[in-house]
């Protein structure tokens, strides 16, 4: 039986030091046993990134691509259409001007022969891991390329005890979602990990990030930010422009799902107003990073026992100072609606996971800077990846 060991050195209030020898028997704690296993903190993981060769640099359109006419488009126009890309390979095209879904298709139909994105074994069947997830757009110039970069697999299920699946980086030309290029990324564990996360590097290429490494601002750097009092376990969930949305636990007082905005330029941290309860944990960053929106949830008792966490329809918009600047009560999103995105036009977009959408105008426009996150999986169809385009 293999053994793995990790050590965590712990600072103490006094001069007493605790040394923890953490020994986890891998065999006993993983494949066949009952037990969870000790986990070292993400910062302890060694980063090794893989450079993806032979891909078209983002921002440079080949001759075959339809380039937008810059003079005809202001930056908001690049965000006319939102493509919601679901893990089962379904893409919904949403016209944000009309506020409705205008088309829907499966990437298996548009990813070559044989299809580079696995088709569903039957409509509604759930794959073992995400079949398709777009790379987060980082800025307007990436949006302007009219390309979608999608991490995808042609394998619906894992095979036997093999925990890995092969993934490719697919480049699609928009708006037709015509497959332009496919680059092999290798095999990735999708049993105890997630499909690979790919980001653009500083040289205009692509890299696969190792598990646990962030391409956004690193949590460890937050320690030195101003106003980080009472903040523990900070975790960056989204970022846009020079702001990161950070979730954390408060070291004092009631245990609530706290969140704040970290200004990466001034190294200042701003706490968002407390949520009304410990259930309202869904906070999303607005494009540009100057606002964040929290969905208020409650627990409804069930006749059969237990309770259901469900949206009340209330939304709270926080400004850059962390204070609530507006409250919305939208009956249409009460219940099981999930946040897809906050758009530059000032819309909060929600899905019920069954192909239906709701749009809540937030009364202001945001900056045309897409919001990026590290999510790579969404098997429930409640937090699709997002691609913007003017067409």
């Amino acid at each position, binding site marked *: 039986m293999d053994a793995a060991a990790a050590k965590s050195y712990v600072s103490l209030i006094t001069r007493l030091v605790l040394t923890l020898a953490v020994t986890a028997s891998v065999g006993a704690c993983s494949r066949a046993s009952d037990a969870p*296993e*000790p986990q070292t903190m993400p910062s302890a993981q060694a980063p090794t990134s893989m450079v993806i060769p032979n891909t078209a640099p983002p921002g440079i359109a080949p001759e075959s691509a339809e380039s937008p006419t810059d003079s005809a488009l202001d930056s908001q126009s690049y965000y006319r259409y939102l493509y919601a890309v679901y893990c089962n390979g379904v893409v919904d095209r949403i016209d944000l001007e009309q506020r409705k879904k205008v088309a829907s298709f499966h990437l298996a139909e548009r990813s070559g022969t044989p299809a580079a994105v696995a088709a569903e074994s039957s409509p509604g069947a759930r794959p073992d891991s995400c079949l398709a997830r777009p790379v987060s757009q980082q800025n307007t110039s990436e949006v302007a390329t009219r390309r979608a970069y999608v991490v995808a697999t042609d394998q619906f299920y894992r095979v036997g005890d093999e925990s890995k699946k092969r993934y490719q980086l697919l480049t699609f030309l928009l708006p037709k979602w015509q497959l332009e290029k496919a680059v092999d990324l290798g095999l990735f564990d999708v049993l105890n990990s997630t499909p690979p996360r790919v980001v653009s590097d500083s040289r205009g290429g692509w890299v696969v990030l190792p598990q646990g490494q962030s391409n956004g601002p690193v949590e460890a750097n937050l320690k030195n930010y101003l106003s980080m009092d009472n903040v523990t376990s900070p975790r960056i969930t989204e970022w846009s422009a020079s702001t990161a949305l950070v979730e954390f636990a408060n070291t004092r007082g009631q245990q609530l799902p*706290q969140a704040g905005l970290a200004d990466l330029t001034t190294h200042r941290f701003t706490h968002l107003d407390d949520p009304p309860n410990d259930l309202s944990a869904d906070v999303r960053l607005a494009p540009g990073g100057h606002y964040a929106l929290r969905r208020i949830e409650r627990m409804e008792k069930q006749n059969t026992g*237990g309770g259901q966490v469900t949206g009340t329809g209330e939304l709270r918009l926080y400004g850059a100072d962390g204070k609530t600047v507006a409250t919305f009560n939208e009956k249409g999103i009460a219940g099981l609606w999930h946040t897809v995105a906050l758009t530059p036009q000032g819309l909060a977009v929600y899905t019920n996971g069954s192909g239906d959408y709701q749009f809540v105008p937030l009364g202001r426009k945001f900056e045309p800077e897409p919001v990026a996150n590290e999510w790579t999986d969404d098997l429930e169809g409640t937090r699709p990846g997002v691609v913007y385009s003017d067409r």
Partner: protein
Amino acid sequence: MPLITATAEMQGIAIPPGSAPTYEWSATLTFNGGIAPTKTFFGGGRSSEHPIMRAQAGHAKTWRIPFSHVRGGTLTIQVTVRVGGSSHHGTSESLLIAGTNPLPSAIRTFTDSIGATKARFRKQLRQESSLQQFRPPDLWPKYSSDGLGGVGLAQITRPAPTADQVWNWKENVRAGWALYKEKERYARAYPATVRRSEEFRRLVGAYNQARSAQRLPPVQVTLPDFTDEQLEQDTIRGFNGYANGLHEFRVRTEAGRLFVTIGPDERQGTAEWERIPAADRGRAGDPAYVEHVESAQDF
């Protein structure tokens, strides 16, 4: 269980000659699915904790934490050292205990060992959870997106899952199989329930009235039990909660009239079961749940 040994080291603290430090150890292991660092999708309002672990005061500067339950979350270790009339306290930080998903072969071995040998049950585990007790990448318990707190391989929802079912995949599968057997009993009893129902009697009465209008003798209509195939399919529908109060099958009618196959003596007739079409299932739940389970890959 994880094996974790803590060691207390006093640095720069003078120990008077002849005195031996005493150590008092304790540890907590807590999980809150809605709050960092153990926040996980759909985990809001879900929490668990290991009973507090303590050691009697003694002279051992090391302590192997005596886990007694399969749990995960944030581990906090505390030690108080008393020496030379003074006390020193230490608290650990940032140690997380997360889960690891079992391989399909381990799940298969376990299901076989408890008599859960039906392929449809295994497929159901796959459709429910993608064969994951814990959600990657953080590997906290995998809760259902419907907010009901369904968790783990079998997405145990009602009754509310125990902490053992949340953290121990075998207990989760065991509970799933118990639920399957319970729903199988319901499914087995369902045809008799329908036979006794007012609605079925009304259908039979209307059928014979129509025959009478055609000067045909009445028939005694029987409704068969489910076939083995139907029994499993209805069981699976029950496992998913009979959304909208519907079973997988209903008595077949045509234009509102009972469909009966008349026997050769024209005195006996047999009604039929038909699958309820997805279009008649309403919006709650997954209308095609059974089809989705059946199309999933066995392992």
